[in-house]
């Protein structure tokens, strides 16, 4: 019987959706489930951990874990994994996950796979599917070790409605602080921004927005939808938008349920970053723009005219 340990995805004191998604998948493949949560003052999250579908909750609540630090977090995960006897250890797609997973794999001496979109268990043989070469191909990988540490692509697994777990809390001893990598501070992104990799809906802005006024207009749309806000390289290079919001070959590769490309022409490098999205909506003044070749729904029009109408229509539909 498979035993899946899911690392709880906690961001700024909130339990993120990937936790229940991963646990749902674990249940779906018939595994026993456990979750490990690290942080400080995370007691209040435990019911959520249970409801997400875990049967055991490993909790490491310590002041030293308030700010993310890869070393100590990895130690907690390894501790939980050993105690649980996990053969599958899954992280949601986050920077923390990507930083910790390889450490855990190295310490446990097991295989590690990043950005997996599917996992199959056939008589103890683990196989995963993951994209490679900037989303241009998929790899089917056979895991030779009995265990696998994986970082799961955002939205790859779906949360099952109505799943729940059993409360079974195990407190982990606080790990040693990493004295050689001391985190001094975190410069927060402006007011609770939504992570691009995490978001279900991503709204991106391109050169069609022209300047800050245009960008702000599109940002309002993103805010309405509580969507992640991204950008093409052009707007980043022009200095309007910070680099970490760039969607594209050398930026972030996203695959949300809905991707809105506003004022984006659709250069190949940008497409590489969002082609995997489930549904793509494009708004562009030029009917010949290449973005329309990948968009499921394309609106030919001036974004300054269309975006306010979009917002209005979405407001109507949602009410």
């Amino acid at each position, binding site marked *: 019987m498979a035993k899946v340990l899911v690392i709880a995805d906690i961001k700024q004191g909130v339990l993120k959706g990937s936790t229940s998604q991963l646990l749902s998948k674990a249940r779906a493949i018939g595994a026993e489930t456990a979750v490990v949560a690290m942080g400080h003052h995370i007691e209040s999250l435990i019911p959520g951990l249970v409801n997400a579908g875990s049967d055991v909750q490993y909790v490491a609540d310590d002041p030293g874990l308030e700010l993310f630090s890869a070393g100590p977090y990895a130690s907690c995960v390894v501790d939980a994994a050993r105690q649980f006897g996990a053969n599958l250890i899954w992280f949601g797609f986050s920077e923390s996950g990507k930083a910790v997973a390889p450490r855990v794999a*190295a310490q446990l001496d097991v295989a590690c796979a990043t950005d997996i979109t599917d996992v199959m268990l056939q008589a103890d043989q683990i196989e995963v599917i993951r994209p490679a070469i900037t989303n241009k191909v998929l790899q089917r990988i056979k895991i030779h070790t009995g265990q696998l540490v994986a970082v799961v692509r955002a939205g790859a697994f779906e949360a099952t409605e109505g799943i729940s777990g059993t409360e079974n809390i195990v407190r982990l001893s606080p790990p040693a602080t990493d004295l050689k*990598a001391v985190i001094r501070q975190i410069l927060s992104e402006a007011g609770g921004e939504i992570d691009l990799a995490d978001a279900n809906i991503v709204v991106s802005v391109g050169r069609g927005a022209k300047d800050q006024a245009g960008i702000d207009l599109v940002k309002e749309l993103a805010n309405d939808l509580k969507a992640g806000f991204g950008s093409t390289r052009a707007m980043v290079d022009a200095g309007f938008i910070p680099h970490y919001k760039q969607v594209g*070959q050398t930026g972030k590769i996203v695959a949300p349920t*809905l991707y809105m490309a506003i004022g984006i022409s659709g250069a190949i490098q940008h497409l590489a970053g969002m082609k*995997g999205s489930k549904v793509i909506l494009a708004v562009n003044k030029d009917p010949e723009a290449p973005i329309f070749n*990948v968009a499921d729904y394309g609106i030919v029009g001036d974004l300054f005219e269309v975006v306010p109408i979009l917002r209005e229509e979405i407001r109507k539909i949602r009410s």
Partner: protein
Amino acid sequence: MKILTTVKKVVDVELNMHVRDGAIVQEGLQYVMNAWDENAVEVSVQLKENHNAETTLVSIGGGEDNTKIIRRAFAMGIKNAVQIDDPALAEADSFVYARVLQKVYEKGNYDLVITGKQAQDTDNGQTGIILAEYLGLPCVSNVIAIEVMDDQHIKVSRLGDSGTEIVELTLPAVVTVDVAINVPRLPQTRGIMMAKKMPIDVMDLAALGTSHDEVGGGGPKSKIVEFIAPETRKTGRKFEGDAAEITAQVVGLLANEAKVL
């Protein structure tokens, strides 16, 4: 400060990838330096220029394409190069690479290992972090800025989930860098001319003082059994006309047909 920089040869991601019979069609492919490693090389060269650091690159692999990227790094300003060329490493995974790098590291007296945060062919992003684990060194990944504090300490900025994390590292350490850290310089003609003559220390595993068994550690932990072409998107629909009308129409479709709103 002695820096060890890793560079990897990857397929040029500007090209289309064709999959046939579960494998990637090799014909017509060309290979270049991994984009993130260009950033790593640029970081190293800047540290050389500003802090007199000694720079050494390590590359695992053989062939003309590999030599080409080593020469590119020379042209950018790296002074020394170690190339580990051994057929036994053909099927290496991140763990094997990390072991080999560990051996290279142990042969020198390095203060800082700089790698790109991931390679454009595998998109794994693991090797640098695993190397740090093997070496027992502190590590920060996804770094977008490095500041030298003194001989023993550097301060790095990392793109984390809640914002930019400022971390102080005690050397020796491993750092993996993101593209946002700098704009790699284009190798200039003079550098390219001089790079042609610079020596590369080519070694196989034996010359490195190890063996496949030692770095392979009991066989690869995983194997790619098949490559699959991703599903091509179906052509969508384009709506032209009165902005209000078509937008309303599309929103309706998004909600009722695609069910994404």
